[in-house]
């Protein structure tokens, strides 16, 4: 038992030491080789092709997997792309909105998982729409440059999800009708807790 735990401790330590060197460019390295050799699923490829056909260079197709298509888009174009996804591709609701902090890139990524109830051919599909907001070192939530346009007027279902991202990561959604706290206490005055520089005590 004790030897096991020692082993795992040394494992994690060596991991931590080696990762900073790998960190700068893991993303393009990991994704490109995956796409080329594997034959892409046809239906999912059709969805991503329609978006690329409409927007060209403004969107980047991150991956096309079975039932999942991921589109990266800049914050200037996200409203147009989201509107096309709703009106042109029949996706009708957002299942999940996730904020991910990337301190080394000075960016916060917001990922929308969009699904469809009304079109039965899309029942299995999740369209992943990702965008990135600028990240400030000393955040003043709502009053700094960490802002994104809201998708609430396009997908009504993001309302509470975006409120959660606002309090947990400090991303202010411009044009959201109800930019208030949701889960955190009203007098929370620390960093937004899901940022990486908010460290749990004792860990």
């Amino acid at each position, binding site marked *: 038992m004790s030897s096991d735990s020692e082993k795992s401790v040394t494992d*994690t330590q060596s991991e931590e030491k080696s990762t900073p060197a790998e960190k700068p460019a893991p993303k393009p390295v990991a994704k490109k080789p995956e796409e080329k050799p594997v034959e892409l699923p046809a239906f999912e490829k059709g969805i991503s092709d329609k978006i690329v056909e409409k927007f060209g260079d403004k969107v980047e197709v991150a991956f096309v997997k079975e*039932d999942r298509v991921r589109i990266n888009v800049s914050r200037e174009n996200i409203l147009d792309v989201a509107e096309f996804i709703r009106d042109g591709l029949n996706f009708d609701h957002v*299942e*999940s909105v*996730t904020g991910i902090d990337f301190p080394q890139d000075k960016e916060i990524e917001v990922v929308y998982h969009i699904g469809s109830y009304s079109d039965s051919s899309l*029942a299995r599909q999740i369209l992943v729409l990702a965008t990135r907001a600028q990240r400030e070192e000393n955040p003043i939530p709502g009053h700094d440059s960490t802002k994104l346009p809201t998708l609430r007027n396009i997908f009504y279902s993001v309302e509470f999800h975006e409120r959660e991202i606002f309090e947990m990561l400090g991303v202010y959604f411009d044009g959201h009708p109800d930019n208030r706290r949701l*889960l955190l206490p009203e007098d929370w005055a620390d960093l937004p807790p899901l940022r990486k520089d908010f460290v749990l005590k004792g860990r």
Partner: protein
Amino acid sequence: MNEIMPGLALQKVDERIMTLNVGPQHPGSGHMRLIVQIDGDYIVACDPDPGYVHRGEEKMAEYRNYILNIPHLERPVIHDSCNVLYPYVLGVEEILGIEVPERAKYVRVIASELNRCIYIMYWLAIYGIFLGHSTMFMWPAGDRELLIDLMEKMTGARVTHAHFIPGGVRNDLPPNFEDVCLRHVNYFEKRIKEYSAVFYDNPILIARTKDTGVLSRQDAIRLGTTGSVLRASGVDYDLRKKEPYDVYDELDVHTNVMKEGDSYARSKIPWLDMLESCNIIRQALQKMPKSGSVRVKLKPNPKGKGLTSVYKRVESGRGSLGCYVVSDGKPEPYRLKLSVPSFRNLIALPYLLKGEKLGNMPSVYWSLNYWPVEADR
């Protein structure tokens, strides 16, 4: 920072309208506060204020490795703990590239269907007491024990099982489990069929829930609701059928749909789901391989390769439950997001309560199949 923060701005209220705080300790709200504005007996606006049981599951998950995350991630809904873990386990399996043995898949399906029934029975018991129907509290609370005993036999724990692990399930079934399970499930089915006479055909329940809190099909889709709320509004959507995971594609799953969209339909769909679960368990017991391994051996600190992300979802007792795992090649997830059905259904609450009588609030609120602890995570 002296400036008032956006979350602290006070709302102006009309002189005619009274603001009422329901919760957070009121038994009719359950760890959450509803700020209700009423005009006489009618609700003008409702502002749900969750967060009283926020435990930071997502933050905690970033500090623990994929195996250590298992016991704490099931805490949001301990009655439905297998289904809460299910999408996480599926996601981690994809990140680590693990193939699950056939028998383990069937064991998982049986465990998750049993858990669905256990959750719905608890929910139904509370629904009964919300409407002042004490029999409907006692019966489900008692009959639930049958299945809890079964889960105890299977996993060793009564509610928090921590049974699903990446690569299968923790333990194989005990000897003779199939027979005991079949016997309990058959009795359970016979028992819950009796509920229709005492509860669902009861004129008092019908008077209190029919045509209250009606959610139309279009609105159910637009608001992004899920599970029983969605299916009660006439949308035929069940992930067990639409996006079958594990062995659900080999089983015959029937989706229960009702068109009314009122509180009555929303309270009946979970009960129909339990009957369907009994069918699925019987099928799974029949088709399950009689022997074989139920788990793959894992390395001490399993980790993925590079920056990858995976989004998996399953049909839980309340609806579609998604888990988004982002891995950066370390033994801990870089970010873990639980997209829970309770949180997704919460958006329908202010919408449904507008214009409703205050007395109908408990029946509408609990018919949303809402679990406060899960919504807060």
